Structure formats: structure tokens, C-alpha cells
């Protein structure tokens, strides 16, 4: 606390306080982040009477400062004197809840929600609830949108008269003039419904929900779809048909694709919320329509949900529903005109095989997989390949291998390096599924070819891929198939390829073990220390440092040490540097 003459401990705090208004945003931000330190030094009384009033009026600041301030104030209860005084935090948060930046307002609302829990029931009615009302009836939509997020936290803890007022305020905001407020209300509708007594859910919420779901602005209507999920879970099954389903059906056929997109996007949640009976009668046809929607964005969203939707169908007639209703739509999507739709489908379609079982998969799904493996769009093929494990469990990968191979080869040679990179990343997975024999026979050449790709990212990924393959197939396999080829590149006329040998050795030494490293790799590395390209030489030093721990001490002392010492006197300064670094790391000095 302040007091004593020239108190040293005051100085840092004094700096922090002065920097609250520094010209440099970074310093202000820094001070705001240490607001608790300032408050602690000032004590609870001065924090309440001086610091908070000052902060209440500093809403002119940059967004990032205000954001930090809004966050800090959510954790300030103890610093103003505990729950008894928590209401002192309301004025600054109230002014932050009206600024134009959504992120700041949202953070202020989050902090208000947090400190609402620290209010006693009396304080909540005396201080907090009036604030909510002020915000709800504010002139500008910014304050009214903020109010929407506060109803649900104070509702459960206030008297029934105040509850009635809160419900009234919420109703008013749901029919606000500005779409911003209606959107805020619509997005909080589900949350508010959860804290309401069941009778009010039916009497109040349903009518608001219906109104918002038929708002003139589609940006409001689509938020009602989300609320639909929460509301449906709150109502007894027998009421769903009359109270929720008409609105949901309407949303699924909305004129605006954005609303239909939202229905497609929330389909799994909706399906769980309305239960199996309604799913069978209503959602299946709705889902079929979404899969056939005229807007590609909607089809893609629905295609993404195919697996989840099928999984969650009631088990008793799941197979029949999929086979007669869903699969025909899926078949059409395989040859959709839009590649996003196809690739969304490709990312989930393999999951259907576990649901449908072996026979159906072979008869109905396999032709689709094969068609997608031949799709013109690489992303579709990649998505199929990345999900092979699902099929492997059901029918084994052999069924696919004949088509798989050309697809992989084509991707491996795609002109876009990002596509090549993506397929490399699936190689270890494929190797595991296909087995070592098939791999050696068909894919090994590809893996080696990537090592001399002209894009560095591909060579790097190829190196990493080799390491993963060795981990999978073991050191012996490495010694027979990979190591000779890798070491052979040490004599390549292109220095980039010679460096690839070193990078491969770096990656493989550990997986291959001491014997292979010492006997086969080390001699090659040592020999490369005489390379005429300096980049190769300093990479030799780096490689030696890397594989050193795998070698025995004899090899280190008799073979590695002399070479590193020679490199340490190299004419190139980088070579010298890395040689010296290796010497010190390997403790050879």
C-alpha cells in the first residue's frame, strides 16, 4: 500500500498506471493485462472509487486494448472487495458492451455472464437486472444485441415478477427493427429456452421461434435452425410434431439456399433432437431433397453428413432406408458436376461400408469407390484413399487394389506438388493396409522417385515417409530395399540429390539401428566430406552430429572425429561452424 516516503515498490506500479494512457498501443495493452497488479496495489477501495470510473470512460481505445480490458474485468471480483462489491464492475462492462466491435462486446458479455454468478440474488435484482434492461432498451443496436446474451444467466435467479419482465424484454428484442438484434436474439433463443419453465417454452418460445424462422431476412431465419435443435430437445416427443416440425419442414425447403445449407449442416443434431420416428417419416425425405438440392453448397453440406445420418438411423430398418432412399441419391452425387460436392462425399462415403456390411459394400458401394478413384478431381481421389481403412475392415483392400494402384500412380505424378505431397502423407497408411509384398512390388519405386522430385517440400516429405515405412516394415526390409538405393544417390552428379542421401540417413539411422548405420551409412557420409560443394560438406557435419548417438564410441573416435576435425578447418565458414558444433555436441573435443 502507498504511504512511506519514496517507496521503491510503488515505482513499477506508477509506471503501469502511467502507461494506461501511453501513446504506444503495445504499452497500454501491457498495462491493461497487468490491471490486477495495479488494482492490488491500489487496494479494493481505490480500485472501486478511482480505477473503475477511469476505466469506464476509456472506451475510446483500440479494440485490442478494450478486448483485454473486457476480459480482465471478468476476473476482478476479488480485487474490488469480493462478491459484496462485484456490482462495481458493471459500469465499465456496460460501456464495453455497447462498443461497435463485435469481439469486444462479446467479451464484455462473457465477463458479465461470469460475474453474474457472483452476484447475490438481491444484488442481481438491484444491480444486474436493471443493467440488462438498460441494454435491452438502449438506443443503439449494439447495446440491444449485448442484452440478448444476458437474459439466460439472470433469469433462473430472480423473482417471478422480474422473470415476467425479462421474458417481455426478450420478446421485444425478437421483433426488433434491426436484423442485427433479431439475429442476436435468434442465436440465444435455444439457450434462453433451456432456462425457462416448461410452460413458457410452449407459450413463449414456440411463437418467437416460429416468427424468427419466418423472418424476412434469411440471415435471421438460418439462426432459427440452430435454435430448433435446442428447442426440440426440451419438448416432449408428442409436441414436436405440432410445434417444431412445421417450422423445420419449412426451413428445409426455404427459398434461400443459406437456410437450407444451415439445415444440412445441422442435420445430425436435428436428427438426434427429433428422435427416430420423426427421422423416419420426415427427415429421410428432407435429407434426400438436400442431397438433390439445386445449390452446390447445400449438396456439399448434406453430402458431408451422409455417414453420420446413416449411422444415427434407427437400427431396425436402417439398412432398408439406406438402400432404398439414401443410396440412390449418393450414386447421383458421385457424378455431381461440382467438385466440392464430390469431394465432400468422398470424405465420408467409405464410412458407409461398416454400416452396410460386406455384401452390400461389394455389390453397391465398391463401384462407387472405384468411380471416385478415377475422378478427374485429385481431391476426390485423395479423400477416398485417405479413408481406405474403413473399407479394409469390411471387405479387405484387395478388392480395390486393382483400381487403387493407377489412382495412386496418377496422384504421385500430378503436376501440382501439393497433390503429390498429400498422397505421400498417406503412403505409410497405405503400406500398412496393403502389406509389404504389394508395396515392394508396386509402390516402392514411387517412394524412391519422390526423393529426386524437383520440389524440396516433396523430397523432404519423401524422406520422412521412408522413416515411417521403416518403422512399419523393420530394419531388415530397409537394408534390403531402401538403403542401397538411398546410398546410391551419394554419387549423383546433382548435389541436391547427394544432399537427399544425407537427409535420408538423418531420418533413417535411428529406425535402422546401430549395425546398419555403422556398416553401411557411415562410410558413405564420411566419403561425402570430400564433396566439392560446401552445402554438402556442412550437411555431412550436421548428419554426423545427428547419427552420432546411434554409433558406438569406437567408431566415433576413430572415424567420425578425424573427419569432423578436418571439416573444422574447412575454407568455408558454414562448414567450419557446423563441424565445430558437431564436435562439441558429440563431445569429441
Amino acid at each position, binding site marked *: 500500500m502507498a504511504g512511506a516516503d519514496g517507496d521503491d515498490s510503488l515505482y513499477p506500479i*506508477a509506471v503501469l498506471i502511467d502507461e494506461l494512457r501511453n501513446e504506444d498501443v503495445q504499452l497500454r495493452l501491457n498495462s491493461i493485462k497487468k490491471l490486477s497488479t495495479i488494482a492490488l496495489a491500489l487496494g479494493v477501495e481505490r480500485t472501486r472509487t478511482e480505477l473503475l470510473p477511469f476505466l469506464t470512460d476509456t472506451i475510446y481505445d483500440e479494440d485490442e486494448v478494450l478486448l483485454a480490458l473486457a476480459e480482465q474485468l471478468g476476473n476482478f471480483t476479488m480485487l474490488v472487495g469480493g462478491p459484496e462489491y462485484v456490482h462495481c464492475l458493471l459500469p465499465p462492462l456496460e460501456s464495453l458492451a455497447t462498443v*461497435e466491435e463485435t469481439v469486444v462486446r462479446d467479451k464484455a458479455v462473457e465477463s458479465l455472464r461470469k460475474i453474474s454468478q457472483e452476484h447475490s440474488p438481491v444484488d442481481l435484482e438491484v444491480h444486474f437486472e436493471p443493467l440488462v434492461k438498460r441494454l435491452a432498451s438502449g438506443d443503439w443496436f449494439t447495446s440491444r444485441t449485448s442484452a440478448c446474451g444476458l437474459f439466460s444467466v439472470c433469469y433462473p435467479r430472480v423473482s417471478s415478477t422480474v422473470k415476467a419482465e425479462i421474458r417481455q424484454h426478450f420478446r421485444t428484442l425478437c421483433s426488433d427493427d434491426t*436484423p442485427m438484434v433479431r*439475429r442476436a436474439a435468434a442465436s440465444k433463443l435455444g439457450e434462453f429456452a433451456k432456462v425457462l419453465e416448461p410452460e413458457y417454452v410452449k407459450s413463449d418460445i414456440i411463437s418467437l421461434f416460429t416468427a424468427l424462422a419466418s423472418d424476412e431476412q434469411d440471415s435471421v431465419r438460418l439462426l432459427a435452425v440452430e435454435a430448433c435443435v435446442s428447442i426440440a430437445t426440451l419438448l416432449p416427443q408428442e409436441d414436436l410434431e405440432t410445434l417444431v416440425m412445421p417450422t423445420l419442414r419449412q426451413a428445409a425447403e426455404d427459398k434461400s439456399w443459406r437456410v437450407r445449407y444451415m439445415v444440412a449442416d445441422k442435420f445430425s443434431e436435428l436428427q438426434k433432437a427429433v428422435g427416430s420416428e420423426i427421422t423416419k417419416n420426415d427427415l429421410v425425405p428432407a435429407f434426400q431433397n438436400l442431397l438433390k438440392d439445386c*445449390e452446390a453448397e447445400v449438396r456439399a453440406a448434406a453430402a458431408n453428413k451422409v455417414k453420420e445420418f446413416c449411422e444415427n438411423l434407427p437400427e431396425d430398418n436402417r439398412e432398408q432406408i439406406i438402400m432404398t432412399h439414401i443410396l440412390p441419391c449418393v450414386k447421383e452425387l458421385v457424378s455431381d458436376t461440382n467438385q466440392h460436392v464430390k469431394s465432400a462425399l468422398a470424405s465420408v462415403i467409405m464410412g458407409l461400408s461398416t454400416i452396410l456390411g460386406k455384401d452390400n459394400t461389394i455389390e453397391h458401394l465398391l463401384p462407387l469407390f472405384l468411380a471416385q478413384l478415377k475422378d478427374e478431381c485429385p481431391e476426390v481421389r485423395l479423400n477416398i484413399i485417405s479413408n481406405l481403412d474403413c473399407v479394409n475392415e469390411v471387405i479387405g483392400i484387395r478388392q480395390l487394389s486393382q483400381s487403387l494402384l493407377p489412382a495412386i500412380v496418377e496422384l504421385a505424378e500430378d503436376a501440382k506438388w501439393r497433390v503429390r505431397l498429400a498422397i505421400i502423407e498417406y503412403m505409410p497408411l497405405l503400406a500398412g493396409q496393403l502389406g509389404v509384398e504389394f508395396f515392394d512390388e508396386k509402390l516402392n519405386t514411387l517412394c524412391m522417385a519422390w526423393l529426386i522430385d524437383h520440389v524440396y517440400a516433396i523430397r523432404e516429405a519423401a524422406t520422412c515417409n521412408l522413416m515411417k515405412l521403416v518403422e512399419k516394415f523393420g530394419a531388415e526390409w530397409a537394408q534390403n530395399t531402401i538403403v542401397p538405393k538411398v546410398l546410391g544417390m551419394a554419387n549423383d552428379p546433382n548435389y541436391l540429390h547427394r544432399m537427399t542421401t544425407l537427409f535420408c540417413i538423418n531420418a533413417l539411422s535411428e529406425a535402422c539401428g546401430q549395425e546398419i548405420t555403422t556398416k553401411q551409412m557411415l562410410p558413405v557420409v564420411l566419403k561425402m566430406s570430400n564433396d566439392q560443394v560446401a552445402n554438402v560438406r556442412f550437411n555431412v557435419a550436421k548428419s554426423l552430429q545427428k547419427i552420432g548417438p546411434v554409433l558406438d564410441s569406437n567408431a566415433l573416435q576413430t572415424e567420425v572425429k578425424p573427419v569432423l576435425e578436418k571439416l573444422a578447418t574447412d575454407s568455408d565458414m558454414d562448414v567450419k561452424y557446423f563441424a565445430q558444433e558437431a564436435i562439441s555436441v558429440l563431445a569429441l573435443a
Partner: protein
Amino acid sequence: MRPGGGSSDVQWCFSQVKGAMDDDVAEADIISTVEFNQSGELLATGDKGGRVVIFQQEPESKNQPLRRGEYNVYSTFQSHEPEFDYLKSLEIEEKINKIRWLPQKNAAHFLLSTNDKTIKLWKISERDKRPEGYNLKEEDGRYKDPNTITALRVPVLTPMDLMVEASPRRVFANAHTYHINSISINSDCETYLSADDLRINLWHQEITDRSFNIVDIKPANMEDLTEVITAAEFHPNQCNTFVYSSSKGTIRMCDMRASALCDKHTKLFEEPEDPNNRSFFSEIISSISDVKFSNNGRYMMTRDYLSIKIWDLCMETRPVETYQVHEYLRSKLCSLYENDCIFDKFECCWNGNDSVVMTGSYNNFFRMFDRGYQQDVTYEASRENSRPRSILKPRKISTGGKRKKDEISVDSLDFSKKIIHTAWHPLDNIIAVATTNNLYIFQDKLN
């Protein structure tokens, strides 16, 4: 305001003129856009120098009950700077092409301003308090000896003279290959569109790093290019509807509900060409330079070189009203082509209750058309007439051989003086008319 008040029963009088009065016009001072905000309390202009000037209407004073509040400078700021695109070796002018006010969301005001490539969101806010009291220095800035600090001091806010600040809030860049000609804010209050010669993009007001391309008329081969987008605007209350006009004189209306990419229009407004008027210049003069929805959202107005057309949104085949702005120029198209005037992009505006429309012409003339009374009038924005509250006299142009008194001959019109940008107060009979570098404000005479 007197509802229904149009040109027939309004006597317009001079109120103010802004800008330098000397004849020597600096290029940077040329006004390039004029726009009232939603309440009419603020009026923004942009110029070729990249500056935005905002005027605020003073509250009505009790001493002069017959005068409405004047507009005085509220804030001036440099919105855009000249830039150079090194990749394309292109200079990017700082000229402000358009300004659009956002609906007010709190005590501050927000506007979007754009040059050819970059749209910026500006916040204009007031500050009347400043913090006072430091721990480590005196108010005059001298540092204190840290050892003398015996107590902590929290700054307090003290009143100060009102300060208006304009701060850039967001920059929406890198989305346009061609020159931006329009920006328009959606009634959903969260998105806006920006249009260039070949594409229209949709932005979220809070997201600067991506926009969605909703219209793209760029042909695969640029040699097949036959038309460009000249203007685009959102419907005032249907958030899913927007229109864009083309250099071929057509207007396409799109429904964003139908699909994500609006390359298929829902309506095409086009008037069949009159074969009698066909000439070498037909295509150039049919190019639409501006399109504006009426405030009630039922009509839209388009301006082409010689006329204003009002379209009922329910009728695509022909406009419901056509007003000739300066038909007497039809015989002069050849010389207007030679001095490039034929490519001038005149804008147009509605009054608050959609009963009158206004647009500019040459010789610092501007025209008003009263839709109900089917009357039209020509006024001149000129310094000769700039006595406060002096009544504007209608101007007449003689087209025949014999010139009557008070008439101006077509041959004596000054084509270097043109009124391209005009704006009408959303609620009152107050108009802002931009001549080259001056902004004239006129209002109806209060009796």
C-alpha cells in the same frame, strides 16, 4: 418537411457554398462523390486528392427561425493515398470513387470509402474528455524524481474541447482486379457489395481477409468482352436482392437466395432500342452511369447519357417513366465524343419520399423531375447567385433558332462545367450539388 413536396411547390434557395472560390482549380480538390448519412445530419464528400470532408448540420437556431441549420466542417481526413502496384506496374489513384454511410450503431458514425482498389471502413467519433494526472511526470511533461513518489495516482478524466477523430477501422483490399465503381451496404447490416468493371464481391463488414465473388462476367477470352458492369446496388430492404447495370444499357436483378453464385439473373430490365434514334453513338449513350433504388424499394432509377429512366421492379420490359435530361445534346454527340464528354458518368438521386428525382448536366446545370406533376426544372449552381436565401431561378435552354430573353443557347453551354454528383437529404428538402471543386447546398424556402 412538407410531404409530397416536389419541385412544383418548392422554391429552392441558395444556402451555402463550400470550397475555394478562385478559378484556378487544383486537380486534388475536384469533388468525386457526395453522400448524406441516414439522418441527413452529416454530409460527406470525397475528392480526387483522396480526402474525405464531413459536414455537420448545426442545430436550428432560435434567432433565425427561417433558416435551417447550416452545414459546417465536422471532420476532414485523408482516406486514401496514391499507391503503386509493383507487380502490375500500375499506379493506383487516391481518388475517392464512392462513400457509403453505415446505419448508425452507437454514438460514433461509420462510413465506407473506396478508391479504385481498396475499400476502407472509417469511424468518426467525438471525444470531450481527456485523462489527467501522471505519476512519473508533471502535467507539462517534465519527469519527476522517482524517489519523490509517495502515493499512487489514478488519472481522472476532465472535460475538454470537443475533438472529432476519424480512425481507420478496417481495410478491405486485394479483391478487385479492375476499378471499383460501386459499393452498397446490405439491409442485413452485416454485409456489403463492391463492384468493379467485371465482378461483384460480397463482403462481411467485419471480415477483411476474404470476400465472395457473386457475379463474374469476365469472358474466358478478353477479346470476347462486350459489356462491363457500371454500377451495382442492394435493394433498400430485401436483403437478398441486388441489381447491377451494364454498359449496354441493361440492368440485371439477382436473388442471392437462389444460389451462391449469382451469374444467372432473375430479372433483366431492358428497353428495346428505338430504331429511329439509332446512330453511331447509340451504344455509348445507352450505357448506364448510375442505378439507384427508390427509398420505398418499389422502383429503381437509371441514368444514361441523355435520360433518366424509372423502372417498376415488377416490369422488366420498359421503364414506367422516362425523363430527358438534356435532349438538346443529341445533335451535338459528335463533338461531345471528340471532347470525351460523352463518357461522363452522371449520377442521380431520389428525394426522401421518392416524388422527385435529380441529376446533373453541363454548364453547372442540374435538373429535377417531379414524378407526380410530370414537371421538370433546370437550375444552375453558380456563384453569381450565392447571396444567402436568394431564390434559384429556373433556367431555360433555347434549342430553336430564335433565342428568347433569359434563355441560353445550346452553343454557349460550357461543357467543362459539369455536375456529376448530387445528393438529397433523406428527410428534408436540402440538396447538395457538387460542381467541379465547389459544393453547393440549396434548401427550400421556409415561409
